[in-house]
Structures are given as structure tokens and as C-alpha cells.
């Protein structure tokens, strides 16, 4: 549930939520670069063992199937939206 917001004190200069934001994104990107290299290496290894890839995707697919509705046709045709903007 949504947390009730405390009544904040009046502040002259509100805190900047972006402080360190760029540094954090940068760290994530750098970390990811390494992870991508590792992943590509792992993928190359996995490519030689198709069964392992299948297992990985089968697990994901199983979780997706739990989320999806039993009747996709019903889901799609009931998702009706008005023209926006």
C-alpha cells in the first residue's frame, strides 16, 4: 500500500534527488559492461550446449506462463482503451 507522506517542513532549498544519480548510473553501466563481457563469454559457452540455454529459457517461460491469463483472446479483446492525447 502507498505510504502516507509526512508533512514536510518548509525548506528553502529542497534536496536534489539527482545528487549522485549520474555517478550511480555510470557505476551501473561500468558494472554492466563487465557483466556483458562475462555474459557474452558465457553465452558462447552455452551456445555449444543448447540444452543449457533451453533450460534457462524454459525456466523463464514457466514463470511467464504463471503470469499470463488462461485465455489470451479474452485478455486482448477486453483491453480496450480510448484514443488519447
Amino acid at each position, binding site marked *: 500500500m502507498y505510504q502516507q507522506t509526512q508533512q*514536510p517542513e518548509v525548506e528553502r532549498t529542497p534536496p536534489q534527488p539527482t545528487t549522485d544519480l549520474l555517478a550511480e548510473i555510470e557505476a551501473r553501466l561500468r558494472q554492466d559492461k563487465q557483466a556483458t563481457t562475462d555474459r557474452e563469454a558465457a553465452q558462447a559457452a552455452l551456445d555449444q550446449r543448447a540444452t543449457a540455454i533451453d533450460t534457462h529459457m524454459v525456466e523463464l517461460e514457466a514463470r511467464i506462463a504463471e503470469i499470463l491469463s488462461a485465455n489470451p483472446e479474452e485478455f486482448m479483446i477486453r483491453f480496450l482503451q480510448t484514443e488519447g492525447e
Partner: protein
Amino acid sequence: MEKRVCGLETEYALSFEARDSQLRNLDAGAIFGDIEAILPQTHLTLEADSFRRNPTGQHDAIAIKEGWFVESGARCYYDAGHVEWATPETTSAQQAVLYELAGDRTVLALARSVPMARRGRVMVIKNNVDYVHGHTYGCHENYQVVRRRSAREDRAFFRMLVQQLTPFLVTRQIFCGAGKIGCADPQAARTVGFQLSQRADFIERELSPETRAERAIINERDESLSGQRYRRLHLIIGDSNLSPYASILKLGTTRITLHLIEQSALQHVPRLVDPIAALKAVSYDPTCRVLLPTVDGQCLSPIALQRLYLDTAQQVLREPDQATYQVLSMWQDTLDQLERDPLLLRDRLDWVAKQYYLFNPLLKQEMTTWEEVAAWSYVIDQLRCEDTAQTGRPTSQQYARYQHILQRHGLDWSAYEAQRQLYFQLRERDLRYHDLDSEYGLFALLQARNLMLRLYANEEAIVTACNHPPGDTRAVARARVIRWAHETGRAAEVLLDWGRIQIGGGNPRIIQLDEPLELYEGMLDSVLRVLHGTDDQQDEIRLLGEVQCELPPRGLRALLRRFMSR
């Protein structure tokens, strides 16, 4: 690069999933009514008041509710059947996306709190299309652009802006498309099973002021919402991104391109022969290698065109600030990877992630291809229009009518049932990707499994962005007035709009927020002190030289005379 504000306006699609898992239609207007009742309990808010700037009654044509500004400087309102959230003014793509995430989180929390949520789940889908009527709704971008001095120069500048920005916008879908099943264009529908962009189908013009019809690559609506020095470039072409990486790229590369245009650094970028045809061709091609004819006789791929912009940016922006440097690196990395193999970007681009994790495994399982899916989708669409949805089975006349299409693609009716199932499965997966609920959304699932890059892992920053404005734009002033109004119990005396604050009951002061990059601290200090104050403190009104004031003219003139004479 000079500072400029930018922001996003997102229209959310709401639907209701009952406890029996059946989807039900809901009245988004009624849900917004509930949201309006809850929002002031969970946030410091003030009612938005934009009708004064637009008193022409245009609002009557479509359902619009003004909604509320919240203490982050953002605004929540209701527009044409959708709950909409506009971020506060921000000064970088990274900051804008932080506030986009804060908006997602707030809207989701509000949807969970409405009374209807006790009977099931109010789904918040952040996408741009439904698959029944093919209705679309937007994720609009706003960018501050400095006008040229004379009206004539400004018109010429805008023409140049349109000319040089168009090839960029046509091709940026290769990294910021959200991905969509099928195609609304009947000419292309038989061959397009999947496309990069949700919005490309709905863009019909190069330039237009419209948003609900004749949508354009560049919207030419000229409503500044700030001083006349600025134009607010309003883009309605973009998709709603779930991936923050894609969203940063969308906003960040567009900001850089605008800077290059202002620096007259893009004269060499060729114009496209047919931008609308090119837009669709790019969207239909997941290899990103389609060749686009240019007026100077070249044929360039979308990646090559994007590289023209990136190369220029790298030459012009010799010492970029940190935010710009980050976007430049991401831009280069993305184009490099797209060139190698788009699937390498499955952990950061929405359209690639959908294709790789959600759609391709299904196609593999059914031992079919996108070409076959496209041909079948066309036939199934036609059959649905002819109202076979009831039985799901075509009649003998329909068999005969569509036989030639299947034959042309080497298909036969034996696969009909399986393809019909696939048709709906693909579309449900597409819609579910955009579900913001972490328990039900497929993007959220991929992110939870570390299959999508999580750039904003700092929960505290997102929570802070829900309640605090960016510290370097006029959103600070808006937020401060909201807090002041609640502290003093004078909320009823304040009228807020993006570019204007009116405070005071019978004796209101109006502060025009003409400069989006100003904080208006001194001006607000003086006005708020006057409103609190004694006669002596009226001295503070000397700053009203900067403030337009709706005091009774005689009183105001007397006061100004008093201080002018000092």
C-alpha cells in the same frame, strides 16, 4: 552544452482484472475521480489551473480534468480517457527519467488505493496502443528551445529545426522503439509481424499541430508555458519506454541533437526523400539495415544516419558535462551493438527484449516465422472484422476469400487454430510487458531476473523524486508554494499553472515563471513575507518590480511610487 529543461507526459492505460482473472472495462474518468480524492491524502498537492491560460472552451471537446500539481512539481491530470502524469521540468535526460519512474510509481500506488482495487486489480499499462480498436495514446516529450530574436528569424530557425531534426526522429526508433506486434497499415500488414515502434503506425504527417489526428513527426503546436523567449518543442512521436536505458537515450540524444541544430552544426545531414515512408520502413525492419533514400541521392541505413548525428556531436561537444558525456557513450555503444547484432541489446532496449524473451520463444515453440505470423495476422484480423470472433471458425466463403493470401506465403488452413492462438498470445505478452505491477509485469519480471539493465537501483532516489522537485528548475518554486500553502492552511488562495503562480485571496499576487531555469527564490520570499506580514513588512514588496501584481491598481501604483522614489 547549455542548460535546457525537458520533461515527459505519459498517458497510462487503465484496465481492471477481477479476481476471476477476467479483464473488465473500467471508466478511467471515474478512477481518476477516485485518484483525485486520494492524491491530496498521500501527497502535498494544489489544484492545477490552466483554464485561465486557455479560456477558449477547447477543453469541452474532449474530457479533460485539470488535476493536481504535487510537491515534486509534477502534475497528475485526466486527458481524453487516460490518467496522465507530467514530470516536473528537469535539466538532463537522466533526471527526467528519474522523475518518469517516480511518476510510474505514484500512478501505480494510486491505482492500488482506489476503492475498486478491493475487488481486483486496477492494471496500469504504460504502453501506446490497444489491439482491439487500434487506439493510440501518447508519451509526449517537451524540450525548451530558445527563440530567435525576430519573428521572421524564428520562423526560419524552426524550418531549419524541422528539416534537421526529422531524419534523427525517423531513425531514433532503432533504440527507443518499444516494440509492437503487427501493423495497422493494411498495405504492410501481410508482411509485418513485428515492428520496432508502437507509434510509427499512427504518424501521418511531417509537421502538424494536431495530436488526436494527423499526428506528425514534429508537432508544431507553439505553446510556450514560459516566457515568449522560449518555444516548447512538443514531440508526440515517441513510445512509452519501460527500459530506463532506452528512455535516457530517447531524451538525451534528442537534447544533444537540438543543441547541434542551434549551433548550426547539422547542415550536412541529408534530408529524407519521404520521411513518413522512411519512418515506417525503419519501424518494420528489426535488422536496422533498411536503406533510406535521401534527397542528395544517397541511401543510408538508420544506423548510418544516427552515426552522422553522433559523429557531429562528438566533434562539437569537446568538453561535455557529465550527463551529456554519459549519453554520448550510451549512444555510441548502442549503435555499435546494433551494427553487430541488435539482439545483443536485449538487456536494455524494449523492442529487443520483447522480441528475444517474449516472442521468439513462442515462435520457436510453434515452429513458425515472423513472415508466417504476419500473413496469418492479416487473415485473422480480417476474419475478426467480419465477426467470426464468436465462433473463431471461418466460413467456407471466408476460406475461399483468403486462400490466395495463404497460398502466396506457402501456408494452408491446417495451421489456422495454432496461429490463431499465437495471434492472441503474442498480443497478451506485448500488453503484459508494459504492466507496471512488479508481480504481473513482464518487463518487471525480466528486470527482477537481472535480464534487463537496472540503472536506477537506488530506491531512495526514486522515493525522494516522488516528493521533491529537481533542484535546478522553476519546479522548485511550484513545490515551495505547495508546501507553503499547506503549512499556512492557505491552499484555497493559490492557483497554479506551469508558468504562473497566483497567491492571495482578495489581493492576489501573480508570479510569472517565465524562465524555466530560474528558482524564483527571492521573488517568492518577498511575496510570501508580504502575505504573512504586517504593514512594515510591506516594504518587502520592492521586489514586486519583477512580479506582475493584481492588486487594486491604485494601491499598487502607490506602493511602487513609494519605492521608486527611494
